[in-house]
């Protein structure tokens, strides 16, 4: 609805966007830029990532330094967010823990996404055995509750490094949903005439996948990935909360909460910060994901 009679910048943008001179991604970017909540979320997320990556480099506080004389100190000038039960600086642990939590979030989303997208495309494009196999596995995964499965996997001792192990496990169980989504997309794309044309000119399957199927399912994948990262971070925190995720002394937002429940009567600050960080990051990723979904949907007019 246009309330102003003068031509505003917004209208100009909208008019420009309708010209064919922009590529699909150019249009998406323009539409996203007008989605205020998503843009603000994007900037805050970038800021958070920069902070957890770079600030520890200049800070010179050791997150693993145990100082029992300083245990359970409330927030003060010396310890911005207080100290935990081992006298470790909570602020430093929060930053280092953020690195781990975000790393796990991005890595799991990337690997499970890659696996799921390729399997989904292949199943949808080739049909037949792969398709059947994928759908059966998908149904079984749906009926078995996820948390016990993850815990069983986390208990096996096949990789010594707990962060790497967590990434492997969660990627191995995380591809099912996106594979189903991408399979559905591929099923409709493969009926398009241009895909038929690739067969007529004798294009190889691999080329069809890379040149047509992958780019055309990209929009769905990106939205999925953005919404997924938050879920992965929560799942990591949940596993770590049960003591099965990232193993101390390496901090993560989840395992920082592991010890916190013991001290809720005296030291509530130990509960606040890691939880608030998880909440904030998940919330921002959800806002961004919803904004992206609107920007990428050609039916939506913003």
């Amino acid at each position, binding site marked *: 609805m246009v309330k102003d009679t003068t031509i505003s910048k917004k209208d100009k943008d909208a008019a420009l966007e309708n010209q064919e001179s922009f590529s699909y991604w150019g249009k998406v970017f323009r539409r996203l830029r007008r989605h205020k909540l998503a843009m603000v979320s994007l900037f805050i997320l970038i800021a958070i990532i920069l902070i957890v990556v770079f600030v520890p480099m200049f800070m010179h506080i050791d997150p693993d330094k145990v100082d029992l004389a300083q245990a359970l100190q409330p927030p003060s000038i010396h310890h911005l967010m207080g100290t935990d039960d081992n006298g470790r600086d909570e602020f430093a642990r929060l930053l280092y823990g953020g690195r781990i939590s975000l790393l796990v979030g991005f890595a799991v989303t990337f690997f499970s996404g890659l696996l799921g997208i390729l399997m989904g495309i292949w199943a949808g494009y080739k049909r037949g055995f792969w398709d059947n196999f994928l759908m059966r596995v998908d149904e079984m995964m749906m009926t*078995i*509750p996820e948390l016990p499965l993850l815990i069983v996997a986390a208990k096996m001792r096949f990789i010594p490094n707990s962060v790497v192990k967590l990434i492997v496990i969660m990627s191995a169980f995380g591809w099912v949903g996106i594979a189903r989504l991408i399979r559905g997309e591929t099923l409709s794309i493969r009926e398009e005439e241009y895909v038929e044309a690739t067969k007529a000119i004798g294009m190889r399957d691999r080329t069809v996948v890379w040149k047509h199927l992958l780019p055309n399912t990209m929009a769905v994948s990106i939205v999925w990935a953005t919404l997924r990262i938050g879920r992965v971070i929560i799942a990591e925190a949940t596993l770590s909360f049960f003591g099965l995720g990232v193993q101390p002394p390496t901090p993560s937002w989840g395992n920082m909460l592991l010890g916190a429940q013991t001290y809720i009567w005296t030291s509530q600050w130990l509960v606040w910060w890691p939880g608030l960080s998880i909440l904030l990051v998940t919330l921002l990723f959800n806002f961004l994901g919803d904004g992206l979904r609107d920007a990428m949907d050609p039916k939506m007019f913003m």
Partner: protein
Amino acid sequence: MRNYILRRLLIIIPEFIGITIIAFFLFSLLGDPFAELQTNPFISPADIAALKHMYGFDKPVVLRYFYWFFSLLRGNFGLSAVTGEPVLKMIGRALPITLSINIFTFTISLFVGIWIGFKSAVKQYSFFDHFFTGISYFGIAMPHFWFGLMLMILFSVKLHLLPPGGIMTPGMDTAPLLARILDRAKYLIMPIIVISLGSIAVWARYTRSSVLEMLRKDYVRTARAKGLKEKDVLKKHVFRNSLNPIITLFFLSLPGLLGGSAVVEQVFSIPGMGRLLIQAVMNNDYMVAMGGIIMYSFILLLSLVIADVMYAYIDPRIKYS
């Protein structure tokens, strides 16, 4: 229709067998539940061997699977390796606790969620809509266990109103019924709030998008054009039709009634199904863990069938082929 239901029911059998196979071999990968006993100097190797024999752990894994599977069919879920109790008895103790929480939260979140979703779709972009959309974002982004801890800090630590965990005040088991119910309620308020917030958010989001989609349909415009009262349009045309996807979700979430939120039960130390299952997995207590998972998955399979059949009843466009 009858053929469709029959065929749908028959598919359960191979799927059920598949789940038992996955569950069994996954747990057999975990290793020997008696491994810890071997390091205990007070237990002789002969005793361990006797224990292994008693539980059947001296036989190869494939044989164990068949033995377990057939006793499962006879309704025998085996014994817990930790306490020696029958698995069914442990489930029988945990299930009523989980059910008492879940039936309550499920009903509340169903009605409140659908009501909020419907209202916010009808008044799209109003204050009501923005307010509850905001809350549902929080409900989805909030880690359950952290929300539980925060409530605990507020109500137990700061206000001293509610007990921080557990299920019953000691000595209350002989009190009159009403007092017992009130006592139980005191312990369950916080877990119920935590679980409800998340599921109200999900119901509201689903309902909102479903109703919004219906509002754009041509027949809704027709109904308005022929002069129907807005109330009737919303009630008879929009609301009824937007229920279809919600009914599927309803049956998909039914098994959750038995499952129990492991995380919430852990935080509030409630001895329910979720906690039973998680503790069993942690302690390598195969029989309990497998029994719990099998029961849950079987009920989920059944509900999927019911959802499919109900869907075919409700939506006449679906052909049962």
